[in-house]
């Protein structure tokens, strides 16, 4: 295979890490809403944890995006 083409395909595949990030963010917000609707008085105290979980889950997917950017822009 042409190395340039392989690089582009690899970069595309590396972006599939974002699937996991999407699932993770959905789970976090879904479960938070579920918990918050069951016990609304306990919800505000957990808001920082919600944001922390969101940021951590999103970052994990972005690691994959970094790999894609390395493949695209670093001359190996």
């Amino acid at each position: 295979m042409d190395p340039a083409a392989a690089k582009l395909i690899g970069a595309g595949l590396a972006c599939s890490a974002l699937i996991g990030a999407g699932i993770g963010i959905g789970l976090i917000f879904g479960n938070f809403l579920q918990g918050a609707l069951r016990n609304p008085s306990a919800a505000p105290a957990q808001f920082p944890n919600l944001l922390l979980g969101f940021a951590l889950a999103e970052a994990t997917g972005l690691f994959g995006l970094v790999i894609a950017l390395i493949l695209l822009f670093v001359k190996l």
Partner: protein
Amino acid sequence: MIDWFISAAHAAAAEGGSHHDAGGFNPMHQFTIDRYVHIKLFGYDASFTNSSLWMVMGTGLVLAFLIYSMREGRLVPTRMQSVSELTYEFVANMVRQNAGNAGMAYFPIIFTIFVYVFAMNMLGMIPLPGLGNFTVTSHIIITFALAMFVFLGVTLIGFYKHGIKFLKLFVPSGVPALLLPLISVIEIISYFTRPISLSVRLFANMMAGHTMLAVFGSFVVGLGAAGWLSPVAFLPFIFMVALMGLEILIAFLQAYVFAVLTCIYLNDALHAGSH
């Protein structure tokens, strides 16, 4: 591995520059580093770049705001003073919750890290005439330097407080003896990847966010050719406003996450024996 990331940012920036000169659109152009004043120190390139300029602007703004708002130090705060006090209380609560009262000794450095990262992230959201748009924290070398500083500092504090007992951190209590070698190896690896994950998290969020903003911004400009009042041009514009909101949220969140994780690492060093 870190060399890769550094050269990735450089190559991305260089690529962006050359493409821009050719007249095409490149979302990576915003990460280009320009040297304003060429300085060579002991064979190293220590030029005053646009990155340095934005850093000076950011720290200058924060310093000016904090000093100006606190100049009277009233008991009943004015509006500006209460913004400073809110920031202080926010970070102080974060340190107390995550690192305990012993962590309050290190409050100044954590406050500095939080405010610095937050100011750089937010300043990156504002395009300035003549300077364009530049986010200092979208460069791995900046975030890695910050993370390495935190990592080395926390490790030194750990050894200073506990001596050789600090190594207990890698031997969690209550683990079956059979699993202990495996768990220890995992703990050691996860400890040494901390600076990488801490820095890449911030860098990747900023870089991906600003690349996305540039790409969607180009859609707005492209469809604007269809006439500014036509719905095809207007819808991406509304979407862009929402994306800016998301990016501002992320700018705050990443500064918060960076500071919280610093507190958590500090907690590990301060209370190494107690878990």
